[in-house]
C-alpha cells in the first residue's frame, strides 16, 4: 500500500505563493496525471513528494506517515532529461541501484551477488526493450531509449511511488506513443502509484486513472504572485463514462474520505 496524502499544504517563498490549500488523497495504485499552465506549481507539487522541498504549512504523508525531507528509494523519479548516468553503460546504470543497496561502503558487488544483480538488471532492461543495447553508454542512445533506461533504473528499486516529470516531453510523437505503450503495462505489473506531470493533455487523459489540474483561481493583476495555485479540477478517469470534458466536475478542495 502506498497512499499519498496532502494535508492542507501551502508552499510559499517569501511573498510569493506557489501552492495554497492543497488537500488530496492519492490512493495506492493510482496513475495520477497533473496538468496546468506553466508556473502553476506542477513541479513544486512533484518536488514535495520527492522530498526535495518542504511545505511551508501542512504535511505530505506516505501511508499516513511523514517521510524525511530528502529523496529516498521508496520514491523513484524519471526526469525529462539527465536521469541517467553518462559514465555507466545501460547495464551499469540499472545495476547501480542494486549495488548501492547491497554494499554501503563500496557500492560495488562481486561474485555471485553481482551475477544475481546482473540477472535482475538484464530482466528489467529486457522489459523496457533495451536488451540489445545493454553494453552501450547513454550517449549512444536516442532520447527515447534514454528514457526507457531511466524507467528501468527506477523500477530496480521497486519504488512505492514513481514520479514522472514530463518524462516524454522531449520525445517525438512516434517515440512518445511507444513510451505510452510501455509505461501502462509496467504500471499494472509493478502495482506502483504513478504521479506524472505533463503538458500533453492527450497523454494526461490517455494514461491516467485520475487527473488533477493546478491553476491560480484568484488573480491579482498588481501582484500575480500573491495567490498560489490550487487544484481546480479533479477527474476520475476510471468510470465507464465518456471522457469527461474539462471543467465538467468541480474539484472538492477538502479531503475526500
Amino acid at each position, binding site marked *: 500500500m502506498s497512499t499519498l496524502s496532502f494535508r492542507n499544504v501551502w508552499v510559499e517563498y517569501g511573498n510569493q505563493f506557489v501552492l495554497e490549500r492543497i488537500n488530496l488523497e492519492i490512493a495506492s495504485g493510482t496513475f495520477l496525471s497533473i496538468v496546468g499552465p506553466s508556473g502553476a506549481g506542477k513541479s513544486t507539487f512533484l518536488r514535495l513528494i520527492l522530498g526535495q522541498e518542504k511545505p511551508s504549512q501542512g504535511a505530505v504523508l506516505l501511508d499516513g506517515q511523514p517521510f524525511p525531507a530528502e529523496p529516498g528509494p521508496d520514491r523513484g523519479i524519471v526526469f525529462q532529461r539527465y536521469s541517467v548516468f*553518462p559514465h555507466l553503460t545501460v547495464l551499469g546504470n540499472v545495476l547501480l541501484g542494486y549495488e548501492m543497496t547491497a554494499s554501503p561502503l563500496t557500492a560495488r558487488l562481486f561474485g555471485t551477488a553481482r551475477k544475481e544483480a546482473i540477472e535482475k538488471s538484464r530482466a528489467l532492461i529486457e522489459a523496457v526493450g533495451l536488451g540489445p543495447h545493454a553494453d552501450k553508454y547513454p550517449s549512444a542512445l536516442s532520447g527515447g531509449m534514454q528514457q526507457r533506461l531511466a524507467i528501468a533504473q527506477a523500477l530496480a*528499486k521497486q519504488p512505492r511511488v514513481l514520479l514522472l516529470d514530463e518524462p516524454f516531453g522531449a520525445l517525438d510523437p512516434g517515440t512518445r506513443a511507444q513510451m505510452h505503450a510501455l509505461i501502462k503495462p509496467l504500471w499494472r505489473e509493478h502495482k506502483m502509484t504513478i504521479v506524472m506531470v505533463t503538458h500533453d493533455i492527450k497523454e494526461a487523459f490517455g494514461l491516467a486513472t485520475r487527473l488533477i489540474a493546478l491553476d491560480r483561481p484568484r488573480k491579482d493583476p498588481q501582484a500575480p504572485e500573491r495567490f498560489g495555485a490550487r487544484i481546480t479540477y479533479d477527474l476520475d478517469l476510471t468510470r465507464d463514462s465518456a471522457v469527461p470534458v474539462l471543467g465538467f466536475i468541480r474539484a472538492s478542495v477538502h479531503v475526500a474520505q
Partner: protein
Amino acid sequence: MPRAMNVVPNRGSRLLLALLPFLLIALIYVVGSAQRRADNPDDKLLPPVSEMVATSKRLATEPDRRSGDYVLWADTAASLQRLALGLGISAVIGLTLGLAIGLLPIAGAGFGTLVAVLSMIPPMAVLPVLFIVFGLGELSKVVLIVIGVTPTLVRDLSLEVQNMPREQLIKAQTLGGSTWQVAIRVVLPQIMPRLIQGLRLMIGPAFLFLISAEAIASDVGLGYRIFLVRRYLSMDVILPYVVWITLLAYVFDYALVWFGRRAFPWAYAQGSR
C-alpha cells in the same frame, strides 16, 4: 572556389602543414648559426647542431667525471620524480577537496572562500618560506608544485561538480545512494575526465615551479643543470635541455590524453555532438 573556412586539409597535407613551421624554425636556426660561426669561430650563442648533438651524446652516454652519473638521465629522473610526486599529490588533494566543496554545501561554505583566497597567493612568493620550513631537500620542491597546482585543480573540480545536473544527484538518491556512495560512484567518475584536462593544463605551471625551485637550490635536476651551465654560456647544453624538457612535457600531455580516452571512453563519445 570555396571559402577559406571550408577548405579542410586531408591527412597527408595536415601532417605536412604541422611539420612545416618546425622545419622553418630549424632552417632559420641553422642558417643563423652558420652565419655567426663564420663571423666569429668562438661564438657561443648559436652553437651548430653538430656541437649540440655531440654534447647531448656526452651527457647521455658518458658518466660524469666527478660524480660518475650519467648527467642527462640523473637530471631527468630527479626532475620527473619531483614532478610526478607534485602532480600526483595535487591530483589527490584536488579530487578530494574539489568533490567535497562541490557536493557538500557545508564544505563549500567552509572551504570555498579559503581556497579562492589561497589560490591568489603567488607560489614563488612563498618559496623562501618552503625552503625555511622544509629545508633544501626534495620536499620543498614537491611542496612548491603542490601549492602552485592544487588550488586551481580544487576550484576547477568543485565547479565541475556544481555544474553537474541536479537531476543526477536526485536520481542517485532515489536509487538509495548515501552521500558517500553518490560521491564515489556518481560524482567522482564523472569529474575524472575534468581532472585529466586540468592536469594537462597544469603541466606547464608545474614545470615552471619545478625549474624555479631547482634553479635556486638543488644539486641535480633539469632546471639545476640549465642554471649551472648558464655561467659558462654553454648554449650547447641549455638548448638541448630546453628541447628535452619541452619533449617531456609534450609526451606527458599526450599520455594524459591517451589515458583519458582509454579510461573514460564515455566522456569522449559526445565529442561529435
